[in-house]
């Protein structure tokens, strides 16, 4: 695809692979940006990074057993979330240390499986860094189902999540089930990461979780406005990333992260100049 230019985008949009990439990308961006804003405000951004790395074990397991890797990854990621919650609840470890433990365990699992299998490096690479331009119908169906689930959950429990994010203590007093909601939210983080793996990969997904929210926070809007802006920045980063990478044949996830970081830098500078 070397000799394309921006003018070829309308033509690209006619191809199924490109349509799949854009649709999958938008779903992932929407879920990541929305979940990510809550993660930032809950000061739990590293849970996103931690679970994403744990997912490595799940991918290796799926490839080894010949099962759809996204499903094994979903399982391993949710186990990791519950593991972190358990360690916190029992006082075995603080949040950040619990994440570190799960992070290492997930990676170690992946490493052992890879050595047992004698290596499947090429396929693994696409999960590590995503390959949105090669999304197939099965991938798109999985991404859509998980995406719709995430969006529905956030849509339904929006005000409760906002309330426990802002003030956990007073939310408990008002009768909001804080613990179950917090764990459900972290499971939702795992789901969001899994659905984003094909789009951006496990190493860089944390950027898609955190950067759109951070960018939107610079604008100092209401909560509703910040949410909409974060989703907008996420979708913008992904679509620009997909288009530029298709045209210039460079790694999609790299461009996505640079676009998202560029938007963040731009709003930050704009804020300072104002």
């Amino acid at each position, binding site marked *: 695809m070397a000799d394309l230019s921006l003018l070829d985008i309308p033509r690209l949009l006619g191809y199924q692979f490109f349509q799949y990439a854009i649709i999958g990308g938008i779903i992932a961006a929407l879920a990541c940006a929305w979940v990510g804003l809550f993660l930032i405000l809950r000061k739990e951004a590293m849970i996103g990074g931690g679970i994403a790395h744990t997912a490595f074990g799940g991918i290796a397991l799926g490839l080894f057993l010949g099962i759809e890797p996204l499903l094994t990854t979903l399982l391993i990621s949710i186990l990791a979330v519950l593991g972190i919650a358990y360690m916190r609840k029992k006082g075995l470890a603080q949040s950040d240390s619990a994440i570190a433990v799960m992070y290492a365990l997930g990676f170690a699992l992946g490493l052992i499986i890879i050595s047992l299998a004698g290596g499947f490096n090429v396929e693994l690479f696409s999960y590590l860094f995503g390959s949105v331009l090669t999304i197939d119908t099965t991938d798109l169906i999985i991404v859509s189902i998980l995406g719709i689930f995430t969006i529905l959950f956030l849509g339904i429990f929006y005000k409760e999540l*906002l309330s426990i994010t802002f003030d956990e*203590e007073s939310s408990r*007093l008002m009768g*909001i089930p804080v613990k179950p909601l917090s764990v459900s939210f972290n499971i939702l983080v795992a789901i969001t990461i899994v659905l984003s793996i094909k789009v951006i990969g496990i190493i860089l997904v944390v950027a898609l979780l955190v950067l759109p929210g951070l960018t939107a*926070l610079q604008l100092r809007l*209401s*909560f509703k406005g910040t949410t909409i802006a974060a989703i907008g920045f996420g979708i913008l980063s992904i679509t620009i990333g997909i288009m530029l990478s298709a045209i210039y044949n460079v790694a999609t996830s790299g461009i996505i992260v640079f676009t998202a970081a560029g938007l963040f830098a731009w709003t930050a500078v704009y804020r300072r100049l104002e």
Partner: protein
Amino acid sequence: MASTKVETIMDVKNLDVTRSNSLVIKNASFKIDKGDYVGIVGPNGGGKTTLLLALLGILPKKAGSIKLFGNDIKSFSNWEKLAYVSQTALNFDVHFPLTVRELVGLGRVNRGIIGRKLRRSDWDAVDESLGFMGIKNIADKRIGELSGGQKQRVFVAKALVRNPELIFLDEPVTGVDAVTQEMFFKKLSDLKDKRGITILIVSHDLTAVFCRMSKVMCVNREVNVSEITEDFEPNDVLRDAYGEHFHFVFHRHTCEGVFNNG
């Protein structure tokens, strides 16, 4: 004193509360009536917050009984009748993206409406509450941009939006100047007078307590509630809480000047 029928909404008998195995509240017995405006005073570490948390059912009691609106606290379920503004409520993250209206809207969230959107009627209640607290003009401001006095009003509006019958305020007064403070106490008087809401407020402002409020609760392990009447001598009750050498200079006429009821 008008001789209307008094309704006791809180009846505490022989209450003991412990925290990390030490007795913080000892053998407290008192009654709070509907429409009372109670100032809770006492030295730091005397157990004011602990007492409030026990009355709210957040801290378990060691011994004794608490009746809320005629029901034992164990079987009490009408928690929406109570609202609480904590000591730490005003110390939120100033970068949190939330407008005043959005924050007050969160006050409508409770056990009964988990998972349903706030309705028109909820937002009407929010506007009404903002109006009552005189902060409609800052409804779209971000909470991080508010002054200390505005924050107080916003958090009371958030408590008020649930239509409670009893509000607990745990000293939400840090970083507020004296004039703003007095206007805030006056606003709370309005809550009591116009809406019949019962108020319990922890305060270090003794003058405000004795000028403005109907009862004073001294808390220093022991709890002593007295009605504030015309011939009331503050030092009689304050010495129990603060010690023999405490002397509070108080002249009733200072109320007239400082406490403008207009």
